[in-house]
């Protein structure tokens, strides 16, 4: 019953936000061009790294393309769902409209994180999957159900971690009010996800797996994709994404206790 209500609301959200985004048609076309250019650019950068070296951080060029594909998918998801919604939190808090969200008889976190959708990220997701399919061909990966199942699990876990990171930063707005630039910092760190973790020095590797788990977001799914990973890594990723989702939820509820609406 409850689930049905949320699904119903979500379809309404989809409808309204798609209708409003499609008002800016040329905008969407330009965004599509941006997504294609951005993928070309990052493959170009990779090709510079590999032009005189067969391997970087133990990855061959064809294998590193998998990371690029997974990064593109995740970036598309970020642009479609996380970015338009979670930057809105900042606006809600600055202008005091969060009151209206809290008064509604639905979960505030659900409302805040799913209200909007930006269709221009879809192309990036499609491009990412296209690149992955191409990678299956050039890396001669053998497909079966069990393998696809593992890939899907790690990808879902990555999405959960990514969502929690965004949600964490956005939640801190309740105390700091302006966190636009904190989001920029997160974005620039996430940029690192385009490259295999092993290509960094030891200290940065520790930093990117303990403090900001970017390693888990792209490198582990890519390893699973290649069939190289050990089981404990998959378990670790599932556990970490669970912890992240759980604590981001708790953090939101905790932060709401400190919310004093604007002009009151």
């Amino acid at each position, binding site marked *: 019953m409850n689930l049905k209500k949320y699904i119903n609301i979500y379809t309404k959200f989809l409808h309204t936000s798609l209708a409003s985004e499609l008002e*800016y048609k*040329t*905008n969407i076309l*330009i*965004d599509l*061009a*941006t997504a294609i*250019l*951005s993928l070309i*650019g*990052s493959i*170009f*950068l990779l*090709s*510079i*790294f590999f*032009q*005189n*070296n067969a391997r*970087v*951080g133990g990855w061959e060029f064809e294998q590193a393309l998998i990371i690029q594909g997974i990064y593109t998918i995740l970036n598309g998801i970020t642009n479609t769902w996380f970015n338009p919604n979670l930057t809105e939190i900042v606006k809600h808090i600055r202008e005091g409209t969060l009151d209206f969200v809290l008064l509604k008889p639905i979960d505030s976190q659900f409302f805040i994180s799913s209200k909007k959708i930006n269709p221009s990220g879809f192309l990036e997701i499609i491009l990412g999957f296209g690149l992955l399919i191409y990678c299956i061909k050039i890396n001669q990966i053998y497909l079966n159900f069990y393998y696809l199942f593992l890939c899907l699990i790690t990808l879902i876990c990555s999405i959960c971690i990514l969502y929690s990171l965004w949600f964490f930063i956005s939640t801190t707005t309740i105390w*700091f009010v*302006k966190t*636009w*630039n*904190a989001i*920029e*910092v997160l*974005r*620039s760190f996430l*940029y*690192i996800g385009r*490259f295999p973790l092993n*290509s*960094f*020095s030891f200290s*940065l590797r520790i930093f990117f797996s303990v403090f900001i788990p970017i390693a888990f977001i792209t490198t582990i799914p890519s390893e699973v994709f290649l069939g190289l990973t050990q089981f404990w890594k998959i378990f670790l990723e599932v556990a970490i994404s669970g912890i992240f989702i759980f604590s981001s939820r708790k953090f939101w509820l905790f932060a709401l206790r400190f919310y004093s609406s604007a002009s009151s």
Partner: protein
Amino acid sequence: MISNLINRKIFALIKVQYSNMMEYRVEIALWAISGIIPFFMLNIWTNNNLNESINISEIMLSRYFLCAFFVRQFSVVWVVFSFEEDSLMGKISPYLIQPLNPFFRYFAQHIAEQITRFPFALIIAFFFFLFNPESIWIPNLGILFLSIISTFLSFLIQFLIQSIVACLCFWTEKASSIERLLFIPTLFLSGLLAPVISFPEYVKSWIYLTPFPYLIDFPANLLSGNETNIVRGFSMQILWIILLFPLFKKIWFRGTKKYTAMGS
């Protein structure tokens, strides 16, 4: 007389904007941090000994990326985003009545922000040297002077390009997506992520005709003491400014004629 008046106006504007920016110190500090991508790139280059294939020693490459960081810090432009917001909200109308082109206001905003940013950039450089003590060097005064000028010219080129894009707001509401499209080649071709000298031949043959390598690669090479063609660099920077300035004036003139204030 007239130039004296303009000077006084500019100084007044910069003073106002500087005190405005000082209010947002944390924001600007975070923004400075979000620019540390060149250091991650440096880590990939040196950790995998990729620099050997392009004949740059590790020390020179680390100086290059440090300078790229500095040049980027002092040539970041965001005039499109400010202008878009102001024109969507109708704030442009009062600015247009004043006997001063509103772009002077944005220009002063950028200069004031750079002054506020300077100490944070120095702190980041200090930490960089703490981790890489062997790359400390002191550029001689002449070179320092020239590279400050070339960084400023790079800032001017980007400011002009973005102002031209911003003027498109008069025709389409959302010009920022065009800016995001233009940012992709700037990111990959300007030398922020990889020095232009490492690019493959088929790119190097035409890239020096575009404005991109003069945005970061040229000033950074100049400051870090890497090999670069000083005469060509400066003449191309000035050439691009001479080309872009009349274009900006023309589009501004046409745009203001087209402009209809909100609610009128």
